[in-house]
């Protein structure tokens, strides 16, 4: 009897102990294996191709879908950033570019499976790429920049091989396939949900995913949070290993101060959109890891409308360029967190290289500014407005006050206009704003791409409305220039025109300040300026 009771007691004890051991670490592990990412924005669609989709939706789709290829990464001043020149296979095991540059051949991985278990075939790839260039979705305009415009260009060779034909050897064709939009969809599943009015299943894919990516959607509450769980079969990152985190929670927290508190208290693991002041104080406390990368594919500028008087006069534009209080603006708006694009020294007055964005030899020099104003025939100055949108107020508001103060010194009276975001976009599109600040970004930051998209044509992204035939011609030629030295020479010419015409004044490249728990590793600055959840892991 005693023996039995002892046994039962000990077995109870043992079971309790086992339970304790089993539950305590596993709970701790769940948290350690979960990445909680907080953001001021939110995911609004599961297919980034839907017009109106947010940047957070772009980032999410990188984890839920695979593309044919992906960008590699490199170190830039000790920080990991995406590498435009190193393109590796994602769903493609390998790829070839024909010697004339007109044919790209992709061989698919044999082991690649969609999340429902069916294999990824060349048919799926063709359907997905056809959708991207045919359906009325965002991918269309993006792929156009890589000479990918028609479904005829994609040809299935065998179930695991697909061939892409180009009309011209376009350097940007391959990188374009690594961007957000040309994601590879499980065509069998998508076709089941296609309707005669919606043959590409855009409505269904907005709310559902059918991909082969590293993560599967667990729950999706638009405007609040998305929870994704790991796809154990995914091995596109490193061989035989899925992504690190078992779960990722992407949560919207609109108040920046709250986001800062969350990450400081260790309740959130990673955030990339804090206010510069908060980043500075968190960095000073030293408890968290702060990785600041200048967003080298983006630019913040002050733009002038080159068609509206008095800014149609180049000397007025130059006057403004030499009257802006660069250093003060940089400190007030960004707390110095970024890479300045002013204050360069060009010894012989020529651009140092052919790379855009470039650091321009402008600095605050009021005497020079006054001379330019005199040369423009406006020694007394004039009145104008300076506009920015509410969304950028935290950086643009202090900047605007300094611009107003400094321009007043050379006689330019500035009225500050703070516009709701939708109103600002509308006025920019209608080319009604004389002087304003904005930011631009290019996923594929090559010199000709910037110049073609932001400095040519009567279109929305030509913020300064510059119409310079020489610039347009060189930029178009550079696009298909195979010779690297000649391309560099074209870049120098373009930069020289930019500086002498001064259509707009580049200010800086703001930092992407990623603030994370000390245990988080592998953060990489990506082209879409969001976190790729597949990059990060916990020590």
């Amino acid at each position: 009897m005693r023996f039995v009771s002892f046994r039962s007691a000990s077995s109870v004890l043992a079971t309790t102990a086992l339970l304790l051991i089993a539950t305590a670490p596993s709970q701790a592990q769940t948290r350690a294996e979960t990445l909680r990412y907080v953001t001021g924005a939110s995911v609004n669609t599961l297919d980034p191709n839907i017009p109106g989709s947010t940047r957070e939706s772009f980032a999410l789709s990188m984890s839920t879908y695979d593309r044919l290829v992906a960008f590699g990464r490199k170190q830039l001043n000790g920080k990991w950033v995406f590498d435009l020149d190193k393109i590796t296979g994602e769903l493609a095991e390998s790829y070839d570019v024909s010697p004339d540059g007109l044919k790209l051949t992709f061989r698919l991985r044999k082991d690649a499976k969609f999340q429902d278990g069916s294999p990824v075939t060349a048919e799926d790839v063709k359907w997905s790429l056809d959708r991207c260039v045919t359906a009325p979705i965002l991918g269309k305009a993006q792929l156009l920049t890589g000479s990918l415009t028609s479904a005829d260009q994609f040809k299935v060779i065998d179930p695991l091989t697909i061939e892409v034909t180009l009309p011209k050897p376009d350097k940007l064709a391959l990188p374009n396939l690594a961007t957000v939009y040309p994601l590879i969809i499980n065509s069998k599943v998508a076709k089941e949900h296609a309707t005669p009015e919606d043959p590409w299943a855009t409505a269904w894919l907005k709310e559902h995913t059918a991909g082969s990516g590293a993560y599967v959607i667990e729950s999706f509450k638009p405007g609040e949070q998305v929870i994704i769980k790991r796809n154990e079969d995914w091995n596109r990152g490193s061989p035989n290993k899925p992504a690190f985190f078992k779960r990722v929670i992407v949560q919207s927290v609109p108040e920046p101060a709250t986001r800062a508190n969350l990450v400081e208290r260790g309740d959130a693991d990673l955030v990339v959109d804090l206010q510069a002041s908060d980043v500075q104080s968190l960095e000073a406390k030293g408890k968290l890891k702060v990785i600041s990368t200048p967003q080298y594919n983006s630019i913040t500028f002050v733009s002038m409308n080159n068609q509206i008087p008095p800014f149609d006069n180049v000397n007025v534009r130059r006057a403004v360029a030499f009257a802006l209080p660069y250093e003060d603006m940089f400190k007030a708006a960004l707390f110095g967190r970024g890479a300045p694009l002013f204050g360069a020294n060009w010894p012989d007055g020529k651009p140092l290289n052919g790379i855009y964005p470039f650091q321009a030899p402008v600095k605050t020099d009021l005497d020079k500014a006054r001379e330019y104003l005199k040369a423009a025939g406006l020694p007394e100055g004039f009145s104008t407005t300076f506009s920015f949108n509410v969304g950028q107020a935290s950086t643009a508001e202090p900047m605007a006050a300094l611009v107003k103060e400094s321009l007043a010194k050379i006689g330019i009276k500035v009225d500050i206009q703070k516009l709701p975001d939708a109103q600002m976009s509308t006025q920019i599109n209608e080319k009604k704003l004389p002087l304003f600040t904005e930011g631009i970004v290019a996923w594929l930051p090559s010199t000709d791409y910037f110049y073609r998209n932001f400095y040519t044509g009567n279109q929305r992204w030509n913020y300064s409305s510059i119409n310079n035939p020489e610039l347009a011609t060189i930029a178009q030629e550079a696009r298909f220039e195979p010779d690297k030295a000649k391309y560099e020479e074209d870049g120098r010419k373009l930069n020289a025109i930019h500086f002498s015409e001064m259509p707009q004044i580049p200010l800086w490249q703001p930092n992407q300040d990623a603030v994370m728990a000390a245990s988080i590793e592998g953060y990489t600055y990506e082209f879409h300026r969001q976190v790729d959840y597949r990059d990060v892991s916990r020590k």
Partner: protein
Amino acid sequence: MMTGLGATVARAGRRLLSSLPALFGVLVFTFLLMRVLPGDPAVFFASGPNAGKEEIEQIRKQMGLDKSVPEQLVFYLSDIGRGNLGRSMMTGQPVLKDLRERLPASLELTFTALLIALIAAVPLGVVAALKPGSLVDHGVRLFCALGVCVPTFVSGLLLIYVFYYLLGLAPDPTGRIDVFTSLPPQRTGFLSIDFLLAGDIEGWWAACKQLILPALSMALFVIAPLARITRASMLVSLGSDFVRTARSVGLSWQKVVVTYALRNAILPVITIAGIVFSTMLGANVLVEKVFSWPGVASYALDALLSSDYAPVQGFVLLMAGIFVLVNLVVDICYGIADPRVSIG
């Protein structure tokens, strides 16, 4: 008794009918107002890299903006008639679904805040009225002034700083429930009730902890009007003949103050509480933002900033509807508090 109830129902029905033209007016007015505001939603939403004219046109078509305004209005009204409030560009969801998911969050928060405010304000007002001009009266006045002076987002941020950041007592201020807690089956949409129905006490406590701070920061703001109005109307009723009579016949202090004075003084408090409730529901936006509360007010503000027409229109319609309902409830409460009242 039956006739009294019947009369109340009939009165409520009449009230509801007479509010329909006002609701229709609100509908049309908001519709037109949104279209008059500068800012083209299509241009805003086509902001992705490389989105050009074609994308803008496409969104315009998707939102129905390619048609003339009267045509749009007719489509909109017929949609409303079929219970379709349109689709939000911002969340990509039907507005009705968004509102249905978010309204309980706002209601739960507002009810809790109003309850806290009433529980605090009515006794404060009564105490102040009992001893006008005393130290207690001045104390209440100071407290009320402070409550009104500090904007809700400041008190919210302060509460977060103290109770979450410094003391670590409160859970992280991110919405209605901790992200790691699983949700109860949705029945009422009020998390505190749903958890109780599911018998999950731990979850219920987690939801309540999330609710306390935002509700408190909202309550602080509305205690003042409620306490002041209680005090004023208590003063009037304490000085009236029937209270003097009650006192002179030697009724207990409690009976005099609570049964006679307070019951007579409560009418204006109900009116104000009704107004405060409707205002709070819409004006919550700052508290909702600070606490990442997924409510209707922050939803409407985001929509307004991006010129997303459908959610704004849906929100205004919802608010107008709630206003009508609240007025109705206030009327009925009047009847209960003072049977003599009959508002045709």
